[in-house]
Every structure is written in C-alpha cells, then in structure tokens.
C-alpha cells in the first residue's frame, strides 16, 4: 500500500464504489431491488436497515459471493465485473461477514493465507504471512496469536483475524457486516479506533450495523435500506438517531426503555456456592452467589466466556453443577436425573437461551412446532396419547399475534423468519408461560431496533407483573437500560453486584476486567492482560 495510490485516488475524486441498479432475487424473494449507491474514498459509509432489508445481500454481491440479477458495479470509477470473490479481492475489496468465514480448526495464520498463498508450498507462505502479520499488528494494534486455533480464541479475536485477512490481501475497501454484534464495549471501541486509523490512511469502509450510536459516532455518510430498497442516503452530521430510526422502520421508535422503579418482592432465585466443571475439566463457575427477587431484573454483565453461559445452562438444566440453587425455596437437582430442562420448567423457570438458532429453536421446525418446544409435554398440548397439534397451532396463532411476529404464519419454518422474529417466537413461548423466573440470554443480539424496542418492552412488562428476571447480555447499554441490579462476572466469579442506578459503564467495565477497586486508575494494558488470563472459553458464547 503506497501512499501515492490513495492520494491519487482522492485527487480523481471518483467514488471508491458505485453500484447502479443492483437487483437480486432468491427464488420468489426480492432481496435487492434496483439499488444504487456511491461511496467516496477515504470515508466510512454506514448502512442500516431492518432485519432482512437486504444489507448483507447487497454487500455479498459487491464481494462476489452472490451474483446480481441486474446492475453494474464501478470500482474507482471503472466498471468492474465481480463474478466471484476472487475478482472482488483483486479489485481491492475485503469483507468481514456477519457470520465469520473462518475454518475453526485451522490456526489463525492458516486462515489468513487461505486463498492468498504464495506458491504451491505452505512453508514459505506461512513464513511470509507471519512477518506481514507482525507488521500489520504493529501498524494497527491488531494483535493476534498466529498459532492459536480459531476455535480456541474469542469472537473479538476471530473478528480481528477476519480484518487481518482483508488487510493481508491489501484491501482498499473494507466491508464490515454487523461487526459489533458479538463484541464487548471495549472490543467495539477498539474496533472503531482501528477503523478510524484505516480511514485516515485513505481506505474506504462500509459498515453495516443495527446500532445507531455506532453510526452516529463513526460514519461519514449513512444509507438506509428497507425491504430490499435503498430509501435514503444522508450525511451523518446532518441527521439524528431518531430520524434514522424512523427512516428504517417507517414509524417513530422509542430509543430509550421507559420503565418504572422496581418493586422487589420475595427472593425467587437463590444461588449459593454454585460451581460448574466442563467436559474438559476446566472450572467454569467458581462459587457463584446471587439472588433474584420477584419483580426485579438482575442483569449479569461480563466479557463473553466468563461463565455467564454456564450459569444460564446450569439454571436451565442442561449443565451439571455443584452447590445450591433454590427456586421459590425448593432446591433444584443439579446433577441427577431431575436435572434437565423439563424439570426446570416444572419449577416455573422459563429460559430464553443465548443462541436462538442453536438452542432456542429447531430451525427446520415450523413456528407452531417451535412454540411447543420444551413444553411439548404440557397436558394442554396433548390429546390422549398424541400431541394436540390443533391446540398448539391455535396457541401459536394467538402468541404470534400478541408478539407481532411477522409473517403471522404458524406453518412457516423457523429458518424462514428473520432474526428478530425468530427471537420473538422464543420470547413469546417463554414469557407466555407465565414463569416465576425468566432466564434470558442476549435478548436482542442481531435484532433491529424496531424489534429491540418491542422486546425490551415485553421484558419490563413481565417484571412489572412481579416476575423474577435474570438477564445475561454482553451489551452494557442493554444491561444498564433494563436491569434493576447488575452483577458482573469475571473468570467464573461474581466480581460485584451494583444498583443499576448507582453505576455506569466505566465502573462495570473495570469489574468486567476483574478489577474491583474501581476508583483507582488503571491502564489499558492491565485490563487487556487481565482479560487475556481469565479462564474463559469465549468461543462458547459465539
């Protein structure tokens, strides 16, 4: 990357990317309709839109992953044919996909050189890549362990690998599709610092995100997509979050959670000395004590991989543990044959799992079948020896209506709903059970703001009915917005519990790094070091 090249480009002032009239249909679904967009070199261009608006599709077309049905692509003013990703790479485009495209059981280095090897033998390629990697790491502060297996590193690291992949291929144009969906605030901040750095070097960046704050803070221009069409492109400086939200959803959106102060009742969940050892013999929970009362939301914050998942799993009945867990005063079986999801549900525990696609739903099942998932033994869903499918379907129709699931078609397979609507199906199933205790993990991951608003409202409403809610989220903003009290986990332990109204992101951030004396000054290095040595398995949370 010579400096001459990009100054040259800026002088010509042709858009780095120009798309003209791009259309793409998947079977009967028109994902992109006649889309045109220009992105100027050396800028960060944001793209927002509801789930399923067609953002990822458009970017995949630009990257040659999909072929457009119609339309032209111009790179630096030149009409360029991008039939496959190879052509995109040759045109200087790099893309970090929403779902990472990494080979999990390869090392970081192997992932970096895949497809960009020099020559037929690996050894020289690897040596050369190792060197460039060092340099890139130094230049941009993108440190990774080149010999670690991708499956052993956290999502934040995996994303770094994806960015490094693009930089290693000398990308001038970098596309990031929802890069912060899985990052902690600290990681996200770092990512944006790096993006700023890249922009200052003249690289062009396209950023897709659902988070308006990120758009406002980092982008130069922003485009809004709706139902496959590009509805607006505006200068970031000349717009506001409220306006963007409205452009996106087509109505006014409440951006803050509106909730009354909590009125906590008796203790519903009482956890004492909870320990969990995973299959590999690593202690994941190292003596957890916490309580959740009726009518309150306890938020559990923490960097992914510090035991939050295990906490949910053991409470949800699909991980064994030691210690004491009482619900409404009754002790739960943590190891024996009463330790399963069914028994937990019988105790009045409902659970919205962290990963709706891997746990909460059977993607091939139709909506109505998913409505019964976990509750399929409910007598109400039964007629004689059989399942009462008619009853389940009727129930589903009702729930879909109450939760505004779109389309309200109980016979559509789960995989054919958008992420937000998938999440609503899970929430409807769990909340409508009227549980005493609701466990809820990452309720709004990858969900657009319209749906977030709705989901947050439902959670608060449940609290107001006097239910106990244990909320796990890596979004500090969400934790602070919803919780009444916040417990911060680090390395399998609770570092502290704070009143949500008495704390802020900074204090929580330090607790998340395992630092309890939150008033003393701390360096970034100290925090990073602490995080690196936590015994977490960050991968589990992906």
């Amino acid at each position, binding site marked *: 990357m010579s400096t001459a090249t990009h100054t040259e480009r800026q002088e010509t002032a042709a858009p780095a990317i120009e798309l003209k009239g791009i259309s793409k249909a*998947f*079977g009967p679904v028109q994902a992109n309709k006649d889309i045109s967009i220009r992105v100027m070199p050396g800028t960060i261009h944001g793209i927002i839109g509801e789930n399923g608006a067609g953002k990822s599709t458009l970017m995949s077309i630009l*990257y040659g*992953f*999909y072929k457009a049905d119609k339309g032209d692509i111009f790179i630096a003013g030149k009409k360029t044919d991008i039939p*496959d*990703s*190879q*052509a*995109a*790479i*040759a045109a200087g485009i790099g*893309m970090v*996909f929403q779902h990472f*495209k*990494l*080979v*999990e*059981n*390869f090392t970081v280095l*192997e*992932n970096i*050189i*895949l*497809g*960009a*090897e020099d*020559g*037929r*033998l*690996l*050894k020289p*390629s690897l040596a050369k890549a190792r060197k460039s990697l060092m340099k890139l790491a130094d230049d941009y502060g993108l440190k990774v362990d080149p010999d670690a297996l991708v499956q052993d590193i956290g999502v934040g690291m995996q994303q770094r690998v994806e960015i490094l*992949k693009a930089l290693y291929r000398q990308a001038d144009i970098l596309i990031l599709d929802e890069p912060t969906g899985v990052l902690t605030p600290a990681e996200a901040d770092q990512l944006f610092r790096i993006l700023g750095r890249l922009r200052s070097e003249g690289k062009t960046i396209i950023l897709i995100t659902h988070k308006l704050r990120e758009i406002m803070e980092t982008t130069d221009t922003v485009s809004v997509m709706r139902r496959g069409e590009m509805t607006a492109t505006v200068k970031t400086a000349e717009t506001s979050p409220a306006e963007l939200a409205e452009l996106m959803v087509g109505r006014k959106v409440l951006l803050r959670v509106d909730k009354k102060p909590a009125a906590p009742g008796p203790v519903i969940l009482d956890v004492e000395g909870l320990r969990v050892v995973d299959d590999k013999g690593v202690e994941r929970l190292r003596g957890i004590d916490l309580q959740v009362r009726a009518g309150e939301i306890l938020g559990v914050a923490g960097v992914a991989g510090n035991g939050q998942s295990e906490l949910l799993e053991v409470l949800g009945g699909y991980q064994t543990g030691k210690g004491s867990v009482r619900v409404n005063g009754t002790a739960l079986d943590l190891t024996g044959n009463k330790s399963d999801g069914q028994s937990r549900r019988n105790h009045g525990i409902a659970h919205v799992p962290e990963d709706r696609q891997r746990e909460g739903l059977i993607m091939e099942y139709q909506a109505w079948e998913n409505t019964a998932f976990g509750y399929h033994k409910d007598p109400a869903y039964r007629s004689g020896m059989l399942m009462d499918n008619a009853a389940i379907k009727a129930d589903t129709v009702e729930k879909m209506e109450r939760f505004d699931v779109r389309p309200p078609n109980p016979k559509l397979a789960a995989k054919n709903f958008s992420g937000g609507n998938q999440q609503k199906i899970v929430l409807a199933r769990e909340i409508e059970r009227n549980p005493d205790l609701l466990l809820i993990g990452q309720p709004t991951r990858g969900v657009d703001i319209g749906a977030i608003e709705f989901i947050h409202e439902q959670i608060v409403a449940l609290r107001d009915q006097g239910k106990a809610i244990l909320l796990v989220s890596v979004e500090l903003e969400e934790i602070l917005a919803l919780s009444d009290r916040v417990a911060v986990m680090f390395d399998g332990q609770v570092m502290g519990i704070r009143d949500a109204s008495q704390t802020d992101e900074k204090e929580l951030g330090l607790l998340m790094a395992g630092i309890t004396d939150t008033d003393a000054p701390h360096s970034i290095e100290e925090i990073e070091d602490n995080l690196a040595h936590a015994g977490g398995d960050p991968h589990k949370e992906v």
Partner: protein
Amino acid sequence: MDYITLIQLFDSTVRLATPLLLACLAGLFSERAGIFDIGLDGKMLAAAFFSAAVASLTGNVWLGLLAGIAASMALSLLHGLASITFRGNQLISGVAINFLAAGLTVLIAQDWFQQGGRTPSLIGGARFNPITLPFADDIAQTPIIGPLYAELISGHSILVYLAFLAVPATWWLLYRTRFGLRLRAVGENPAAVDTAGVSVIGLRYAAVLICGVLCGIAGAYLSTALQAGFIKDMSAGRGYIALAALIFAKWRPWYALWATLLFGLFGALETRPDVIEALVNFKVQGQLLAALPYVMTVIILAGFVGKAIPPRAGGEPYVKER
C-alpha cells in the same frame, strides 16, 4: 508363535491391508473435502474389472491399471455430478454407484468375454508380479532382519509400495501444500474457501477425482496383483471396511495406515486359527473365528478410540442461495 510365523502373519497383513489402505486414503481425500463417499466399494469393483479386462486384452498390466483408474474416475465424476453440481444426497449417490458397479461389471464382462462375468486369467505381463528388492536373497539367511527384509518388506507387487508411499504423500499434500490447505478448508467451511476467492466446486471435484485414482489403484491391485483376473463381486465389501477404517482413523493419513493395518492383521489372524489357538490355548470355533475381526473392531472402538469428529461440512452440499 515363532518369529517366522509372525513375519508370515505380518506379510499377510500387508497384502490384506493394501487395498483397504488405498481405498481408505481415497475416502480420506473425498471426505476431507466434504464429500462423503460410500461408493468406495463400487469404484474398487469397477476398477478391478476394467484393469483386468484391459490387461487381458492388451497383455499389458500398466494399460490395465490406467483403465481401472479411468473407470473409477468416471464413477467419481458421476458422484461429483450428483453431489457437487446437482447438490444431491451423497449417501444415495454412493449407494447407487455401488449398485451400478456390481451390475455393470458383470454385464460388460459377460458381453466381452462370455466367461460368466469373469475375465480370462491374466498371465505374464498382464499381471503385477512381486518385486524382489535388492539384496533380499543375499541377506535372507541373516537372523532376524533377514526374514524381515526378504519376506515381509521385499516380495510385494509395486502397488503395495505405492500404497504405503501414498501415506506420507497424502500427509504431505494435505498438510504441506496449498492444495491441501484448501482441500481441508473446503471440508470444514466451504464458505471460507469461497470468500477467500477459491472455487469450492473445483476443489471438490479435484478431491473426488483423486479419490477415484486411489480407488482405481485399489481395484487394480485386487484383480491384477493379488489375483490374476476379475470375478464378480470380488471387492467383497472391502470398500465398506475401508470406510470403517477411515472413521476409525479420524480422517487422518497416518492413522489410516494404522487402522487399515489393524484390519489387515485381524484378517490375517482369521486365516491362521492355529496361531490364535496357540495364543488362547483352545480351539476357536469356525464362525466365531469369522466374526473375530468385527468383534475386535467393536471392542477397540468402544474401549480405546474416542469420539471421531468428521469434517464439519461433510455430507452437506455447498449451497449459497437457498
């Protein structure tokens, strides 16, 4: 059991393991690229026939070998067409290929030779003959290493050496070359390969074709090296055993060698009830003996081999657009 018996047992192990090893490596290439292949048996059978047929017609075993490889590759292409291009079910395609080979070999054999689905017996240059390695005869009398070298190491057909060389070659190709890196990647996450600008389809076809080549050699070994001609169904289910060995080997080349040698050893032991009787001190009933390799496999699998994790994208066609 004396030393010579042991050598003989291992000698037999090597012969029995060779076709399994070749087929196992063949499956390894295919499955590492994400294409499951239960059609190994059919490909071996087709290759066994065509190599024997062409060797018999031309008198040249090398031409036979080429024909066998070509036949096996043709079936590989069919498998590729079904499971890569048309994203069909890989298991069904494999089953169909096994049926196709079982039927077509006999039909064609009968049509060409009218010998009841057999090829004529191969003689002379139409067969792979054992190779005596240098000095084998000279040192045969030396204690310990003499028999080891002269009996066990020397005296196999060239295809055996080829098969054993194929193990390090496979390892090298898979772990030391660009092609291998991409091949392994495409079996784990084809989207990663695709977005890296490499053709998933091209890689998978390449893998499937290499699988064809190796199955072709395995089949040719059966009919032109171990035997002197083709008879119907002569693969006798070895493709399935190779598949079992592949899972056993956890899709790794060196493990594949040990796994197939183990299966070979079980097979060799089955032919030597006298050795087993000497070991266990009682007469082993015939059918029990026949079941022995399989029982041993199950025991070893249950007792000593952990979970085998197949290539993550295995068995699934690569679909970008639903």
